[in-house]
């Protein structure tokens, strides 16, 4: 069962992650107002996607594993979405 898989994708993934880190630091100092948050979260999502796609690849054989992991993210979005739907619509009343 010995197989010689290339190691190169792992090094490329690391280089991409470090480049994205440099990019997010640079982006953090640009004066873009509200867009900074959007950019930094987008870059973080890209980094997480690289980690899942390449570093976690050997442990992603099962399709049910996808259901489990996406389930966690689904409920995270429900929590953020419903909490946001409340606070974002009545915050003006809370803050003088």
């Amino acid at each position, binding site marked *: 069962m*010995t197989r010689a898989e290339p190691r190169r994708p792992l090094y490329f993934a*690391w280089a991409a992650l470090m480049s994205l880190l440099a990019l997010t630091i640079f982006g953090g100092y640009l004066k873009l107002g509200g867009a900074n948050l959007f950019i930094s979260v987008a870059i973080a999502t890209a980094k997480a996607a690289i980690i899942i796609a390449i570093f976690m690849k050997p*442990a992603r054989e099962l399709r049910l594993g996808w259901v489990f992991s996406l389930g966690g993210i689904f409920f995270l979005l429900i929590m953020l979405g419903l909490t946001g739907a409340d606070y974002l619509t009545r915050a003006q009343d809370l803050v003088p």
Partner: protein
Amino acid sequence: MTERHIVEKELAEPYADLRHQKQTANLGVWAFLSTEVLFFSGLLTAYSVYRFLYPQGFAEAGRHTEVLLGSINTGVLLTSSLFMALAVHAIRSGARRLMMLFLLITALLGLAFLGIKILEYYKEIGEGLLPGVFFTYAGPYAHTVEIFFFIYFMATGIHALHLSIGIGALFFLIWRTRCGSFTAEYHAGVEGVGLYWHFVDAVWVFIYPLIYLLGRNT
């Protein structure tokens, strides 16, 4: 080692074969990580709500975080994930000694991360930013800054706890390998710890910009 030997050594009840056992272990880690997403999501939600309610105070607080140390630590953690992936790669082709070396480097990078984190905490506590009786920060946004640093210490502290558990798991894997466990044919334990390690890294990937890059654009 023949296949029969590996089965005799590794197969536990109630599994019919090693493939079944490995897939169950893998799925167990994914289920655990799914609950971990929800565990961290409470903090993320609290952060989002307070950042939305008090944008100026949060921006001011964010400028008091140690951006250089935080950025170095992000690099350290991303590199540790590379070595964790290399360790799994090594055992898949049966290179047990190489895997132990990579696991050790991963653990040492984890310890370096914790060391830098402690240095950061030391500086912040010295500046009076630890919420509670030691909080001495003054200014128009002092209360909001305190809320931010409460979330900061909670989020990074819980993350550091996760990383400490991961480092312990890495040394456990090294010890188990020395005892003769893990082969190219069966190494579910290494893959499971690898998944956990990458997850803890991915959590930091989101914590980093939300904490350290906050308020740098003004």
